[in-house]
């Protein structure tokens, strides 16, 4: 059977197709069909020829197999230093092999490559930091995922995630109407406590355009409320867009390049339409990577930048605290041992390592912050990055991958973990569920909201 009815080379294009795929609980039929999915070798060869440029080819050929990357990879460390978990091996045996064989690979090979790409690498890019040649395996794995996606060898949840973006322009089935309605609901729920709280929609020329993660809309609307309240208290001139509000990109995790472009362009369109001075994204790591770091290239922007200056939530928050737009009541600062999870996607990959520590200086009583070791750009992935969290097929591997972070946290002795990234937040929650080490974890918004001083004129009248 060349193509399955669920597992095939066609991206999800319609809501009906999405629902059909979703109804295949756990992807049972999907993975069954994958076993006999043909590899379109011609397509693979052509794609490599067209898209595999000199950077990746050079990287693959100059790799000296020196093994310096081995210890940088948390998969290698927690899997008894299995040589098959050395980053150089993982990429050479998959992408390297496909290129060397000019796409002449079979179904079994593609299965192996899929598992390697999604269950042995979270695209955290830590190995790239330690390679003497500066070879970035994370970037190459992202590329490999694209080749695998094109051939239909992609985990079930990833195919769904990319399909969501294609159908809803969001990672979950949240419509534009639901997004706006949920935000308004949150204003309703909080306007008594915060008089004057409103959600400015589609306001042209605002100082800030705020973009979110669809999960907040779907399951954690408190996050939207907290963002709105903090902007309100800081006196910001902000807005949200009724279209193009989703900052994340499961399409990036899936390797669905076309959907990546489509998704990020919807956000850039909103920027062009509303002409805000800046865009601020929510506390999410990969969303920042997708929209701010990689997005401009997907969209073919010559300057490599989004249409307007785009910053991560932690940058806005640090600025608001630094300039006094938000004032912390010193009595309500965190007074317990607390640590911080550095998100790979905006710390290692976008240099925001000091900004989160600046925030900590404002919100944690001196002496209570304990850094993980290693930290900043050397920090380890939470264990669930790059889509790993969501893939049922690789749950066991993922749970094992959480051990690195678990032990790092235990070593700090902190019972509270700040996790200003959705993916890290999820992974840390799951690690507590799996290993029960007695920790709590939080985004920054709810904590800051609990300690911020409310300006006199914004207090409710008693």
């Amino acid at each position, binding site marked *: 059977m060349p193509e399955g009815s669920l597992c095939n080379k066609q991206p999800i294009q319609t809501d009906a197709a999405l629902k059909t795929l979703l109804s295949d609980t756990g992807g049972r039929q999907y993975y069954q069909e994958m076993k006999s999915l043909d590899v379109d070798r011609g397509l693979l060869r052509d794609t490599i020829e067209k898209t595999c440029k000199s950077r990746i080819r050079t990287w693959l050929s100059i790799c000296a197999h020196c093994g310096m990357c081995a210890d940088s990879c948390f998969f290698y460390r927690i899997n008894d230093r299995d040589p098959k978990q050395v980053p150089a091996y993982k990429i050479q045996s998959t992408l390297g092999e496909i290129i060397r064989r000019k796409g002449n690979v079979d179904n079994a090979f593609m299965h192996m490559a899929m598992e390697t790409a999604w269950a042995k690498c979270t695209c955290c890019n830590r190995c790239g930091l330690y390679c003497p040649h500066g070879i970035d395996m994370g970037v190459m794995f992202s590329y490999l995922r694209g080749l695998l996606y094109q051939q239909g060898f992609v985990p079930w949840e990833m195919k769904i995630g990319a399909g969501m973006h294609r159908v809803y322009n969001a990672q979950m089935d949240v419509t534009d109407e639901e997004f706006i309605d949920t935000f308004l609901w949150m204003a309703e729920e909080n306007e008594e406590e915060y008089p004057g709280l409103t959600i400015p929609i589609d306001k042209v020329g605002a100082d800030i355009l705020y973009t979110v993660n669809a999960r907040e809309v779907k399951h954690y609307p408190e996050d939207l409320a907290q963002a709105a309240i903090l902007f309100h208290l800081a006196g910001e001139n902000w807005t949200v867009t009724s279209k193009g509000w989703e900052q994340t990109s499961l399409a990036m995790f899936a390797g669905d390049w076309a959907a990546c472009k489509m998704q990020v362009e919807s956000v850039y369109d909103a920027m062009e339409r509303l002409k805000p001075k800046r865009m601020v994204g929510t506390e999410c790591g990969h969303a920042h990577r997708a929209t701010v770091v990689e997005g401009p290239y997907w969209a073919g922007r010559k300057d490599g930048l989004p249409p307007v200056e785009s910053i991560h939530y932690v940058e806005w928050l640090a600025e608001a605290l630094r300039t006094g737009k938000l004032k912390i009541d010193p009595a309500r600062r965190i007074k317990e041992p607390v640590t911080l999870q550095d998100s790979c996607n905006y710390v290692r990959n976008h240099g925001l390592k000091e900004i989160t520590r600046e925030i900590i200086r404002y919100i944690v009583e001196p002496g209570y912050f304990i850094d993980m070791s290693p930290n900043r750009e050397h920090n380890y992935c939470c264990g669930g990055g790059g889509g790993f969290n969501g893939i*049922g097929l690789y749950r066991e591997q993922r749970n094992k991958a959480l051990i690195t972070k678990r032990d790092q946290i235990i070593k700090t002795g902190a019972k509270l973990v700040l996790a200003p990234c959705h993916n890290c937040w999820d992974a840390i929650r799951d690690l507590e569920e799996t290993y029960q080490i007695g920790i709590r974890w939080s985004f920054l918004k709810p904590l800051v909201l609990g300690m911020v001083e409310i300006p006199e004129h914004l207090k409710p009248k008693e």
Partner: protein
Amino acid sequence: MFKKILFATSATNACDHAARVAFDMARRYNAHIDAFHVIGVPTRGFSQVVVDLTTGEQVALDDNYRDLVKEEIRAYYDHQIKPSMDCAIEVAVGEAHREILRLARRTQPDIIVMGGSTGATGAYAARRNITGSTFQQVAKAAHCPVMVINRPAGSFWGGFSNIVFGTDFSESADTAFAFAFDLAKTFDCELLLLHALDITGCQINTLHSQDDIDDQIRKARQQMRFRYISKMRDFKNYEVDVWEGIPFVEIVKYAREKHADLIVMGHHTRKKTGDGEGALGSVAEQVILRANCPVISINRPIPR
């Protein structure tokens, strides 16, 4: 007054007492009742895996599972759902308090009825180790009265006849009074108004003299007349009392002595609950945990 009831349930024995009251109300007042169950929290990011709150098991969520849960709930309440009853079973996935509020916003029930505990087990319950954070958050944000039946004793009840209204003279207490008074008129009940004078704030050596306390009681009685009695016009079936002590203890004791079948209070919470897990601080929350009868808490004016 009760044409549409939202009964939020864990569909376990933790909610049996609340169920008894909810279905009794539906029968008594010919109300539509939505028995609503939140299956669990979406875990693992965007995956389709959910930890079922009732069993603590990980389940792959699909329509079959939803239908299965619905059937289970119907079977669980089979003896309480009368054939003539206008009853619908609804299930959802998410955080319990959020999904209850979401449904309430959509269906605009006259009252939400819930148990005090969600009956969560396993790791999830351990994590949310504060009993009843769901009802706290629902009570805080709901636009309708929220009735909580936390103890079995609270459920041995049938219709309203004897309502205790506990007040601290706050704005939300005024809202609660309007509702309690309406209820008393509609169902021809006795309305028992109590202010519990808080004397816990003082240290032993600065303990108020009894003259001070009596003065405060007198003042509180004036407040009662000014705030409430003056608004009741020709309604005569009431009593007014001011008791001093620890407020929640006094209210619970008073309700027991008066054989109240309902307590109505303002929820009165402006306090921050951090990421949604505050301590059971307010008087209303303590009363909910301890009362011998259902407790209705009201935090927002009820749209008419």
